[in-house]
């Protein structure tokens, strides 16, 4: 489903160039649960933006379902995002002063889903994310952090995307709530969705079937679950 060939992203600020990503190549098959791990500033978020069609690479190719997304226009990328991808942002990024339901509708608005169908879809997504019905009409800024995270996950699920990208989804949560959220992702993965989870904590990465480690914009390691022990050993 995903294929990166020599992906490179260079940020230019004045005269200095930052190599956020350097010559990154890998493939992710449909239905995989992949964790991307690496220290701060290693280029994880940059990679997620590339994979999520939020940004285009400086050079290299990115194929999503066989389409070369790297030279798509802004609007073409927007269409890819709304049809195929669900994002869970690190900072929740909910619409302030809007109800939970309106937040979850948002991707459906741009897909021009008829209003009657939206409630049904939102309800299903919220159930999947594990949010109680009593919160549906609360304003997003009246929710607790954990509830906000569930709303953010529900919003990523609502348009039934094939690919879910989550950037530090448990970053702001206590470990118990974090586990619950991770279980939700596992459940979604079992339903057949491809999941890419970004984190800098190893114990979270362990939940995934495959872990890609990046450092200074390059892939350092790419391992399946069977040899995860090996990674641990290398790290320690």
């Amino acid at each position, binding site marked *: 489903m995903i294929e990166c060939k020599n992906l490179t992203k260079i940020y230019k600020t004045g005269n200095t160039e930052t190599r956020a990503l350097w010559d990154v190549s890998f493939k992710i098959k449909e239905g995989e649960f992949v964790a991307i791990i690496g220290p701060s500033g290693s280029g994880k978020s940059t990679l997620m933006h590339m994979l999520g069609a*939020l*940004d285009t690479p400086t050079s290299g190719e990115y194929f999503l379902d066989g389409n070369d997304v790297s030279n798509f226009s802004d609007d073409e990328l*927007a269409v890819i995002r709304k049809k195929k991808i669900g994002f869970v*942002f690190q900072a929740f990024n909910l*619409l302030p002063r809007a109800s939970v339901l309106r937040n979850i509708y*948002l*991707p459906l608005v*741009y897909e*021009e889903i008829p209003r009657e169908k939206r409630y049904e879809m939102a309800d299903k997504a919220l159930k999947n994310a594990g949010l109680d019905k009593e919160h549906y009409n609360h304003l997003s800024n009246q929710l607790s952090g954990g509830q906000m995270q569930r709303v953010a996950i529900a919003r990523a699920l609502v348009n039934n995307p094939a690919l879910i990208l989550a950037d530090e989804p448990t970053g702001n949560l206590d470990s118990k709530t974090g586990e619950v959220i991770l279980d939700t992702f596992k459940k979604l993965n079992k339903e057949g969705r491809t999941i890419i989870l970004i984190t800098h904590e190893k114990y979270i990465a362990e939940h995934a079937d495959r872990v890609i480690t990046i450092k200074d914009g390059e892939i350092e390691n790419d391992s399946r679950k069977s040899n995860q022990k090996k990674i641990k050993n290398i790290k320690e």
Partner: protein
Amino acid sequence: MLISDIFEETFFAVLSNKVRSGLTALGIIIGIASVVTMISIGQGTAYDISTKIESLGSNLLTVSPGATKVIGMNAKSATGSADTLVIGDADAIEEKIQGIISVAPEVSSRQQVIIKGSNTNTNIYGVTETYPQVKNVEIELGTFITENNIRRTSKVAVLGPETRDNLFGIGVNPVGEIIRIGSLDFVVIGVTIAKGGSGFGSSDDLIYIPINTAQHYLTGSDSVNNINIQVEDEEKMTLVEEEITTLLLARHGISNIDDIDFNIMNQADILDTVSEIAGTMTLLLGAIAGISLLVGGIGIMNMMLTTVTERTREIGLRKALGAQNKDIILQFLSESVVLTFVGGVLGILLGWAASSFVMKISDTTTIITTWSIILSFGVSAFIGIVFGYYPARRAASFNPITALRYE
């Protein structure tokens, strides 16, 4: 984006900042209201002037002595100062020209008028019995000057209502009273109906006497100041004007048109000129008011730019979730259009109220026409689009990642 979604977004956005939306709309309200009011005053004034001109008689040609043509550096004698026009000219026009209803020559002079103790200065008009028909004069009391009065050179007078009020008191019936004009006594035989208007050219402060009485006792010559001609219908006015010119040139023995010693005023031409001036005035008033509308539009743009900056993260989020550029443009454009639209409607209502108020407290007529409403509506929608487009375009141009990171 569905239309209903655009409305929902706009509704939430406008209501989430009521004070700011209200103040921005107020700019448009004031702008539109002043355009509507100013145009209504301009239109009303134009209407006032043209009804006034029409009340002086319809399809009127007025021949006066003197020429207005300028030859070389020397203007020829000014209108009305020469005595080249005589009563015979009027008779000739009546006899020889086809397509006219009536001819009414007039002689005017300013004289002192005295009744027991009180005296005043006013215009004395020597006229014929055809005068009321040609110049739309109606009688309130008594009778107007008759053919008989003229034949006998009678010393009778018909008073304008204002003159009557000045000499005898408001509403008094002066018929049968004696007044002294210059050094002669006249019997009052009637009073005309007020036409309104004041100052120069007032048709209410004057005295009518038979034309030959005026020539014989007051001016002492047979020249006339004007010959008024009522033409059968508007289309014939130019033709009749040409025929009268030819006739009078022949009668005055003038072969070179440059030496012409009279001039003819065509009422239709005056109306045209006046409505042109009134149109220019309306345009000017509208343009001045338009400046406040422009300021209102800049207010919209300012507010939208602030909104766009404040909502940068929201815009980034929307784009990340799949909003295309057109969705973002539509959302912000509809916000500014809704504000100007609401402002436009309220502005028209306010302008309406203001022009009714102006009409109530002053003599000025105000007229609100459909076109001025359509115009201001169109202008406000146009302003919403023009001044909202740049901020909306700016919002759409944000890169989703940069926008999401904006603090």
